[in-house]
């Protein structure tokens, strides 16, 4: 009986899946596989294409812009713990049933659904030399002269992190809120009966049960941070100098702007290996705690 259904389902199954799998094959699998041979050539819009072996990789590690871009991408990871911690605090704040709370949740989520172009435009004006942020900080006496937040090398990358933070808070807040609401309330009630303080309840109930959410959110946030692109693409284009050049932006500039497909593929492979290693490490660290996200 089972064997019969097995045989009879194969044809319809593959026919149903064919178009979808074709698209996945061409646009998800093929790019991963094709970038390997591509990285070993000097394929670009100019000149003949030759096999160049590992030249692209040797060139990459001597390329100051690429090294700078890797450093910036790694530095960007600083945003992850801050973003996660603040999102958890926000989730705790909005996890109540007081009147109007849904409106607040929605308000915090609006930056998430807004396009990066619009977000960039607003913050670009707000953060400019003569912008509102400088005005407020001057009035409050926090700074004593105007700062061009995005045009100063030492501040630009951190200001972009701030924008990432501002735009991402609502998203992670909602994920953590789902986590908080999945915790059974009788656990808290039992703890209150046993005389546990509020701090003890957070320490022994909330934090352990929120752990899978913290892991999942930190992982996607970490991947996003290492591969950050939109913020610098719309706001700084990597400048001033290479101050906000990240690896994803550099790959874009090499591959799409300068049409050096081979070199861009090699850079992409290096970044993929780094991201892959980082995610394996994160998985391993987490497995020690016995949490499995999939």
């Amino acid at each position, binding site marked *: 009986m089972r064997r019969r259904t097995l045989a009879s389902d194969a044809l319809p199954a593959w026919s149903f899946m064919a178009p979808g799998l074709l698209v996945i094959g061409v646009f998800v699998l093929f790019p991963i596989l094709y970038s390997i041979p591509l990285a070993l050539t000097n394929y670009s819009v100019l000149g003949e294409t030759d096999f160049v072996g590992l030249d692209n990789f040797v060139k990459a590690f001597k390329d100051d812009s690429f090294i700078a871009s890797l450093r910036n991408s790694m530095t960007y990871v600083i945003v992850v713990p801050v973003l996660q911690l603040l999102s958890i605090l926000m989730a705790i704040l909005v996890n109540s049933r007081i009147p109007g709370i849904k409106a607040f949740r929605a308000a915090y989520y609006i930056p998430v659904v807004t*396009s990066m172009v619009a977000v960039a435009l607003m913050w670009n004006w707000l953060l400019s030399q003569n*912008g509102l942020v400088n005005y407020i900080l001057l009035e409050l006496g926090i700074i004593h002269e105007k700062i061009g937040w995005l045009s100063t090398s030492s501040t630009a990358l951190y200001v972009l992190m701030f924008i990432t933070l501002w735009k991402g808070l609502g998203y992670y807040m909602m994920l953590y809120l789902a986590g908080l609401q999945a915790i059974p309330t009788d656990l808290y009630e039992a703890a209150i009966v046993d005389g546990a303080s509020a701090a003890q309840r957070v320490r022994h109930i909330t934090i352990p049960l929120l752990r899978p959410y913290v892991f999942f959110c930190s992982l996607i946030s970490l991947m996003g941070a290492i591969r950050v692109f939109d913020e610098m693409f719309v706001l700084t284009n990597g400048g001033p100098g290479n101050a906000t050049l990240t690896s994803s932006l550099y790959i874009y500039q090499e591959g799409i702007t300068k049409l050096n497909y081979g070199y861009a593929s090699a850079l992409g492979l290096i970044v993929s290996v780094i991201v892959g290693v980082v995610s394996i490490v994160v998985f391993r660290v987490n497995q020690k705690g016995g949490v499995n996200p999939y």
Partner: protein
Amino acid sequence: MNQPSMGRSVQSLERESRRSRRLRRIVTLSVGYVLLLLLALFMMGPFLWLLSVSLMPGKNVFAFPPPIFPTFVKLTNYTEVWGFINFPKYIGNTLIITALGLALNLALSLTTAYPLAKMRFKGRSLVFAILVSTMIIPSSTALVVHYLTIGWFGLIGSYIGVVLPSAVSVFNIFLMRQTFMGVPDDIRDSGKIDGASEVRIFLRLMVPMVKPGIAVILLLEFMAYWNNFLWPIVVLDDPGKYPLAAALTYLNGQFAYNFGWIAAGTILSVLPIILVFLFTQRYYMEGISGAVKG
């Protein structure tokens, strides 16, 4: 002799503790609301400020002190930006791209997920494993390879070229598979007993059962396509074909001097997405929190 006074003191103590509890509740509640309001100001402030700038034609956002609250209200920025830069055309472009993308995503994720959830055939676990692995292996060069592929297909400059690489995502397939798995097998079996064809069973019996999954995909993809700017900029060679988000970056370059226009254009471009979000919040939140469980 002491009895009544003791009784009274216990009563008054109780009353006092009730009063102090109520007082404490009022204090926590007000602290909570103050925090919520400050946070709302932080998250919504930039939008409200942009709205205020857009309502004051001729105001310079870089004046010192910068304009914060609207001192007068005029809609000329909106009427001008609507006509001068042909806003309806860009909205039309966005709608075409969004509709195409939604239709493809829906059709392909439904047809690919259905056999994975409901049919028995050889290779099912292999397909599943490959799909999972593509989610773990990051592709940093996808953009470059997509550009080459779309070029080989001769689709540069076309809307099909814009939507094809994102016509179906592994994430959507998993989401849809999860929804299909919740549909009882009896439904499919009863269709088979009645002699209905596989296509008919799928369209008439199965698809109506997974409406919640369809709603989530439609929403998430609507937001993604509406806000997408990078890939359209890469593929479309004619800025006249740009969707709204991409056009905004282009206009920002062209009309950088006209703050009011840009502010009004930005408000107009984010308004639809914010409205859609506000009206569909419930489904949307289920969708993103489903991502953690998935």
